[in-house]
């Protein structure tokens, strides 16, 4: 049974992480190619605090705050940069994080941190908590999408200048999206550290950032149910099918390309196209 529990926990953590990116990229339209950095900040914070004797639950708020703080700083930096540079700047932040962390002996350097203490909740308890957190983040996402914040995010994603002319403080909203998204990524990072009880700089590199981005895009950028399903599937797909496991990267890259090529709206786009055959005015371009 442990295998299924471990898979479910992995799934819950991956969904939380994907939803956190969906807040930034899906709702607010800011592309981030370095989101794994913030999961890493949360993971390292939780691991270091855990080793210093903090109980697992106590490390969660700290992980969120630290990741959210760094996210806000990156958000500030991103405001100065042109749209198409943003993706590359966030990618740069990702490489900087890996580059700096692997040099610091305090953070375990190249060897990473392996003796992360047990969370003390037991396998099932930990899984249940991970699922609860995942559900909470999903609920928060749905709430935000329906709130005025969600509507403003949507407007910013479509046309920043018009929102400015409607009196919206666009920079502050972008910062809010970055801070919330990165804080939640930090939260998933804390769970990741305790679930895998080994973290190294490479666990939060460029490939991981692309993986989570493709989960969001696969599900349908901005659509909460779509992202949840896509993250759940893609996080455990390789583990399930061992054959895919060996050609995993080929299948993964291929799927990513084909989905973007034929249905940029992701699975949600597909569903919409088949559920409502008459193409609505917006089609799936939005």
């Amino acid at each position: 049974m442990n295998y299924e529990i471990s898979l479910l926990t992995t799934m819950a953590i991956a969904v939380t992480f994907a939803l956190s990116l969906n807040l930034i990229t899906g709702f607010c339209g800011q592309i981030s190619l370095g989101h794994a950095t913030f999961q890493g900040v949360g993971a390292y914070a939780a691991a270091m605090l855990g080793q210093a004797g903090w109980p697992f639950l106590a490390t969660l708020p700290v992980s969120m705050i630290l990741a959210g703080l760094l996210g806000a700083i990156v958000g500030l930096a991103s405001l100065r940069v042109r749209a198409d540079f943003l993706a590359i700047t966030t990618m740069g932040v990702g490489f900087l994080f890996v580059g700096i962390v692997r040099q610091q002996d305090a953070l375990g350097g190249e060897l990473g941190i392996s003796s992360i203490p047990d969370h003390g909740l037991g396998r099932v308890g930990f899984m249940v908590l991970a699922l609860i957190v995942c559900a909470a983040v999903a609920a928060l996402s749905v709430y935000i999408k329906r709130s005025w914040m969600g509507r403003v995010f949507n407007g910013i994603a479509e046309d920043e200048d018009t929102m400015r002319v409607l009196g919206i403080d666009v920079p502050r909203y972008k910062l809010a999206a970055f801070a919330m998204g990165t804080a939640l990524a930090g939260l998933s990072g804390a769970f990741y550290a305790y679930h895998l009880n080994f973290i190294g700089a490479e666990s939060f590199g460029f490939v991981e950032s692309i993986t989570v981005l493709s989960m969001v895009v696969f599900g349908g950028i901005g659509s909460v149910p779509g992202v949840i399903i896509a993250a759940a599937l893609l996080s455990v797909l390789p583990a399930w099918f061992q054959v895919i496991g060996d050609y995993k990267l080929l299948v993964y890259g291929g799927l990513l390309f084909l989905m973007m090529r034929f249905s940029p709206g992701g699975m949600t786009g597909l569903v919409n196209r088949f559920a409502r055959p008459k193409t609505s005015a917006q089609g799936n371009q939005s």
Partner: protein
Amino acid sequence: MSKPLDGATLLKVDHVTVRFGGLTAVDDVSFEVHEGDLLGLIGPNGAGKTTMMRSIIGVVQPTEGSVSLDGESLNGLPVHKRIQRGMSLSQQLVKPLRDISIAENVAMAAASDKTISPLRALLNVSTDKELAIAQNELARVGIASMAAQSPGIQPLGVLKRLELARALALKPRLLLLDEPLAGLNSQEAHALATTIAEINKQGLTIVLIEHNLGEVMRICHRLVVLDNGKKIGDGDPRTVMTDPIVRAAYLGGDTVSAAVVHSDMENQHA
């Protein structure tokens, strides 16, 4: 058009100069807009009208001089701060939010009190109040019937009116209209100009940037004429249009006189 009694100064443009790397788009222009005015800002192409408007709304920061609203200088303030201070703009190139319906577009503007800060926006969900305001503003500009439709499939005339309704929903004290009549045929232009005059009568101060001189002469109380970045005329439409310098600026007098003649006939009917 008779001019309403002289209200207090609402907007003051004081010796504003705007330079882009050697090119002086606006050169030492000063004028005032009083409460209740419907001021036409006109001038031939490349006269600096758009740059002037941009420096008022804050997209461009003036190289010299200042723009102040209610006596408070706006220099350095970003666009959204000026909007929050009671200014609003209807853009020349209409840009509706295509994901949402016409009513929701206007509701977005109407929710400015809730969306003033991300936290406030997070805590507010209901849209009833805003949709009610939207319905009202759409009625004011005459497209209430299309409230639930998506902007993507509407003709330009409707989109221009949506832009106007959205600007009104911000409950501004000063409305800037950037060539609202551009691209409309003469009936539509005439109808929209009448709506604008109507809204001004309801007490809203308006600065209108427009090429359609016929309509401008018809509805504006006062004109400010720009040419090559300089102010060459400021006063009631009749005197300004007969001023030789203004005529010369418009490449010889005939185009202007035709417009003047046309509007004279108009006045006899109104």
